[in-house]
């Protein structure tokens, strides 16, 4: 179980997360929603120590870290073993083939043997529907294929949690669908995930839990059904804006 409490993060003298407290349940998908600039990415990146909050607690399976205290590189490396990040811009390693992108971590970080890592990478590629792309370079892939490789790369590390920051917002709807299907499948297999997305239809299908963040505060923290059945005017406005249901109005 991953928990944060009183997470506070500033950039310069601008505080962007104001003491967030929440939990990310195991084997569930938590979707983070909220307007642009509300702090969703910053929250997700803090969980992977790509950003450093200045105070608050990080708690993983009972092991507690105080962000206001110095944290050693060794500790950060250990924490990152449990988590993987999938980026909006994929960030595949362009100089490595698709297969090597996936085996890089297992072979060189986890020190698994090469043959095992390759076999598993092939299986993961098949799972994301790209079994025939193993020997290509990332520059030969479409955006949707790239993101599916990135997802396979994260799965290969067997993380306890996968964090995805707007994994499909750089994609055409058609390509987006392929990636979302993969994510739905992984969610079904009870992989713990935290997904930031602007796609409400997808959120509704995949989320167990929803976190609505606005201006660095958590406005809603609860089960999927409660979010979409809410009477909160602010959230209703957000949902209607995101689904363009007001477009024909006035």
């Amino acid at each position, binding site marked *: 179980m991953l928990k944060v409490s009183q997470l506070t993060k500033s950039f310069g003298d601008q505080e962007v997360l104001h003491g967030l407290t929440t939990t990310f349940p195991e084997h569930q998908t938590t979707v983070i929603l909220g307007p642009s600039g509300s702090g969703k990415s910053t929250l997700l990146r803090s969980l*992977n120590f*790509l950003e450093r909050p200045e105070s608050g607690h990080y708690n993983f399976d009972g092991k507690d870290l105080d962000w206001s205290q110095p944290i050693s*590189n060794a500790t950060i*490396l250990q924490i*990152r*073993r449990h*988590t*993987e*990040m999938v*980026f909006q*811009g994929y*960030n*595949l*390693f*362009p*100089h*490595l*083939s698709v297969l090597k992108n996936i085996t*890089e*971590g297992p072979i*060189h*970080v*986890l020190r698994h043997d090469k043959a095992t890592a390759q076999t598993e990478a092939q299986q993961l590629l098949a799972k994301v529907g790209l079994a025939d792309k193993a020997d*290509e*370079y*990332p*520059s*030969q892939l479409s955006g949707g294929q790239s993101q599916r490789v990135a997802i396979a*790369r*994260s799965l290969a*590390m067997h993380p306890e949690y996968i964090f995805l920051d707007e994994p499909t917002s750089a994609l055409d709807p058609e390509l987006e669908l392929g990636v979302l299907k993969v994510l739905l499948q992984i969610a079904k297999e009870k992989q713990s995930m935290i997904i930031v997305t602007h796609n409400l239809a997808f959120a509704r299908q995949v989320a167990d839990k929803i976190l609505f963040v606005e201006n660095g505060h958590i406005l809603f923290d609860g089960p999927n059904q409660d979010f979409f059945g809410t009477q909160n005017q602010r959230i209703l406005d957000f949902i209607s804006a995101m689904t363009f249901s007001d477009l024909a109005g006035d």
Partner: protein
Amino acid sequence: MWQIIQTASPQLIKAGLKYTIPIAVIAFAIGLAIALVTALIRLSQKRGGFLIIKTLFRFYVWVFRSTPLLVQLFIVYFGLPYLKIQGLSPHGIQLDPVVAGILTFSLNTGAYCSETIRASILSINQGQWEAAYSIGMTRTMALFRIILPQAIRISLPPLANSFISLVKDTSLAASITIVEMFEVSQQIAAQNYQPLVMYMLVAVYYAVFCTLLTWLQGYLEKVTSRYIVAK
């Protein structure tokens, strides 16, 4: 004229093979190593006492980029013999001219190339570091396995520039008594009174070597760009 070319060429080529090329190649190899270390130290995020080391390396780059190469050669070869330090070098430091040449050329090209390498590392998207960290890599591992392989490709053309410059700059070694190709051409011109032919001839030999290097650059660029595939 053909006669002059025929008699002078063996001597020029010999000087080229004995001094110009070895000095250029060795100095560039050492220079690259210095450049890589310098670039990595200057990019390091370590704090504390390490800042002194960073400042030292910044000072080194500043010195060698801000002073003429010829002056640097003179200081190392003609100047250091007068550096008399009690207990350390009571009789000054008298270097063999080739050693002095290689030392100076290495340090000079190292200063320039360190900036090339530093810039190429900085040009790699921050997302590459983050993806490497995300799969659990340390900074060193990310640097050597993910960032440098990409940075090398970017730094090849400017590094080849530095190498080609260095080849031509080795002609300055004539001034510290090294009998390299240009020195030999001067000596022959003094004997046969054919400076135009002689200096044109030596220019051709420099150009030939630099052209070979340009080809090598083209080949290396191809090899390191394998992964950039047009869709």
